[in-house]
């Protein structure tokens, strides 16, 4: 079998992989082309007055959010896999649901709830409790970390839980046999075991935090992405903004390489024995209910309370919300969200399939290049995409003229194609990660086997491997879809005429500080994403019952 691989080690799939990578990186290349390093007054001004504040704000936010999402995600995943307690089947999925609330909406909702006119202070005033101004203020870095924690921890929770459920049974059983208690198992077995999926999911959290603009803009915290905005759009200096974006990209690359070096070649392939699920320990009586209560409380803070607040506001404000075009808005959101998510999976499958024939370094490079769109703030990517499409239209103009002599020049740019392309570039990382994980898991053995039976590699992938990986592909699709549902900067900058999505409707109200009206479209975002999560849950249940995937 080795000989079979070796003679095609480099050649196989080089062209399609290269094309996909190039396609995904075109907007990034276009942006990088504009990076300049010459002396620049605005850059000096930025370094002198804003840089320190920005570095401090960004680092605190990123590290704080990674710490708390990591903690919440791993602990919750551990509790849910290790123990049996009342309502576990339900809670397991409820804990994933906060992923459906966009961080900027959570920021507005929590600020509204805890603010002077909010339910809490209103009630306290009614009871004549003296409230010091500032007690419930969350518009600072700690508050932002809280918002990111409750909205982003599901990324960690979902990935770590899936890993623990499928892979750690053997180790944990062994530890139990040796008389380790739950705490010791957590620190000595679970933590080292989940390092790889934890690191991967924390990278996602980091990118989300670095790229977020809504929360930091509202709380007025200076971070990398708010600085890029104020340099580009506030001072009108695109060159300096791109220069900063470039440095951020370098920094993120450095971080990823560092993470990979630290992780080394550690991989937890339990080859030799079948990976086994955990046998959960039954928590009887009071202890079981206590755990259920605790988890439910957490879920209430992360989801139920904001949801209830949004519902309350929607009831107050729905009359002022224009709902006539709702069908079209929801339709747009669903259609182009799923189109983009579908393309992400398609391209993800292409790269992940061929990637298996590359060497270790090739694999790393390929992985990173596939995800580069995720490490640049959305608005910067958006500018790269417009520029790419305008050049493309210029190039294709003769072709258009061939079909219609009176054609306009900008056919592709300004169409939904541009927006969908931008979604794909930006959210490739999300879908690619789950697709690629699935392909790495099954390795090449099935493909090789099919090939010895006379199928081509491509046919083997399509006919044998894809059906095996169906669930992972659907999961990748849904994760990407949920992210695109919440997306804002790309839609705002790239949308065609008369094109609205649920997120853009929410933004339009929130931007005028009409958060109550904004909760109507926000609720719909949550509702639609809930559908996605429900499908995910069903798939996963099937998987555990039927054991259809390895």
């Amino acid at each position, binding site marked *: 079998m080795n000989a079979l691989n070796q003679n095609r080690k480099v050649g196989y799939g080089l062209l399609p992989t290269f094309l996909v990578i190039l396609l995904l990186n075109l907007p990034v290349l276009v942006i990088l082309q504009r990076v300049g390093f010459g002396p620049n007054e605005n850059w000096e001004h930025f370094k002198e007055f804003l840089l320190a504040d920005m570095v401090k704000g960004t680092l605190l936010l990123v590290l704080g959010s990674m710490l708390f999402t990591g903690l919440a995600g791993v602990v919750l995943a551990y509790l849910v896999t290790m123990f049996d307690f009342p309502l576990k089947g339900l809670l397991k999925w409820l804990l994933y649901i906060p992923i459906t609330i966009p961080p900027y909406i959570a920021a507005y909702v929590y600020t509204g709830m805890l603010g002077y006119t909010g339910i809490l202070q209103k009630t306290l005033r009614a009871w004549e409790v003296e409230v010091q101004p500032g007690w419930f203020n969350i518009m600072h870095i700690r508050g932002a970390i809280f918002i990111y924690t409750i909205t982003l921890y599901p990324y960690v929770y979902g990935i770590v839980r899936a890993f623990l459920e499928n892979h750690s049974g053997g180790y944990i059983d062994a530890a139990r046999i040796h008389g380790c208690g739950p705490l010791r198992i957590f620190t000595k077995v679970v933590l080292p075991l989940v390092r790889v999926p934890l690191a991967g999911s924390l990278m996602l959290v980091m990118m989300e935090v670095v790229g977020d603009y809504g929360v930091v803009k509202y709380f*007025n915290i200076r971070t990398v992405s708010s600085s890029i905005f104020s340099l580009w759009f506030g001072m*009108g200096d695109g060159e300096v903004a791109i220069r900063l974006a470039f440095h951020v990209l370098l920094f993120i690359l450095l971080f990823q390489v560092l993470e990979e070096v630290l992780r080394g070649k550690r991989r937890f392939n339990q080859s030799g024995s079948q990976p086994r699920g955990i046998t959960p320990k039954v928590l009887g009586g009071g202890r079981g209910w206590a755990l259920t209560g605790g988890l439910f409380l957490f879920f209430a803070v992360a989801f139920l309370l904001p949801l209830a607040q949004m519902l309350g506001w929607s009831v107050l404000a729905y009359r002022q919300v224009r709902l006539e075009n709702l069908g079209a808005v929801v339709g747009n959101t669903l259609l182009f969200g799923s189109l983009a998510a579908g393309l992400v999976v398609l391209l993800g499958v292409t790269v992940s399939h061929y990637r298996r024939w590359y060497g270790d370094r090739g694999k790393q490079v390929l992985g990173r290049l596939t995800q580069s769109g995720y490490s640049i703030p959305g608005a910067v990517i958006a500018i790269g995409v417009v520029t790419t499409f305008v050049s493309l239209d210029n190039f294709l103009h003769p072709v258009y003229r061939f079909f219609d002599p009176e054609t306009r020049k900008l056919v592709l740019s300004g*169409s939904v*194609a541009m927006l969908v392309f931008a979604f794909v570039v930006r959210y490739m990382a999300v879908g690619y990660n789950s697709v690629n994980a699935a392909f790495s898991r099954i390795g090449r053995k099935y493909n090789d086997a099919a090939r010895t039976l006379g199928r081509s590699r491509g046919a083997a992938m399509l006919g044998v491997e894809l059906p095996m990986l169906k669930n992972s592909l659907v999961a990748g699709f849904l994760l990407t879809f949920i992210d695109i549902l919440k997306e804002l900067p790309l839609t705002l900058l790239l949308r065609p005429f008369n094109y609205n999505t649920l997120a853009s409707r929410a933004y339009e109200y929130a931007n005028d500080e009409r958060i109550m009206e904004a909760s109507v479209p926000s609720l719909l975002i949550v509702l639609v994403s809930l559908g996605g999560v429900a499908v995910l849950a069903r798939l996963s249940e099937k998987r555990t019952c039927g054991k259809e995937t390895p």
Partner: protein
Amino acid sequence: MIRFKTIRALASALLAAGILAGCAGNSTPTSQVEAGKSAAPADAGVVNLYTDRHYDTDDALYAKFKEETGITVNVVKGKSDELIERLKTEGADTEADLFVTADAGRLQRAKEADVLQAFGSQAVKDAVPENLRDADDHWTGLTKRARVIVYAKDRVDPATLSTYAALAGPAWKGRVLVRGADSIYNQTLVASFLELDGEEETGAWVQGIVANMAQDPQGGDRDQAKAVVAGVGDVAIMNTYYLGLMLKSSDPEEVKVAESVGVFFPDQEGDGTHINVSGAGIVKASRNKGNAEKLLEFLTSPAVQKLYAEENAEYPVVPGVEPSEFLQGLGGFKEQGVPLHRLGELNREAVQLLNRYGWK
């Protein structure tokens, strides 16, 4: 060169993807444009807007415009600065005809980015006062707002209020609330002081306000009013229309907040209260300039002005059109006379000043 070649090679692949997605996508703008060319005589074509105004009633006005003229209004809603960037990138081939945004600074920025052209309509020039229009007619104001001092009625005697400058004095230490340096309204306010008082005096003002802030700037304009009522500080610098919107809010608590603060128009003895406009300019590469001018005329006609301004609790720009009841209740005031295009020209200097003195 290599990159160009690869791009060329890639184009075919992209085209396939483009067609795939474009089939559905193109239909939005194209079908309407083409429908405009060929359909019934009542259909007088289109006008395409890039706009930073997001109000639901705008759509109703556009529908009315279509009823009166047969012209369909197509809209891309976005953020001003990013829309300018899109206009720049699309250049001569853009589909946009009219650029609509809040803040004179941004209108001027669009003009400097060379994406606007002069409008010819005499009706618009007759309707809108000269100081609310660009000197070269590259844009015109459509609504007007004032940046005022809002105070806690129970704690602040309005007789102690006078000027913006006074807020920077020691008497107001720890009592002033205002949004962050990224807020375009603050930038434009500072730009107006730069024009009136010069850099040194304005710098001192910025320093004074930073020293007097009750808390680090955070939240939007409504949050400043709430912080006044909550007792975080005693006065806030904010735009009038946010108060008007709070009075119309669906949340009774917000209405209470708006009712428990007073509005003071500063600098009445001096240069006048700072005003700003939301406005529009015709895109340089517009292919429906005639229609765009018709829309401008429509929006500056008295009946529409009233509705257009009232929705956002703003002042109409056309003299003689009465503002909303709320604004009438606030009474008349002396306006700052700075030519609005100067605000845009001085924007960068204003931002640098804010950064230099640590206005967060």
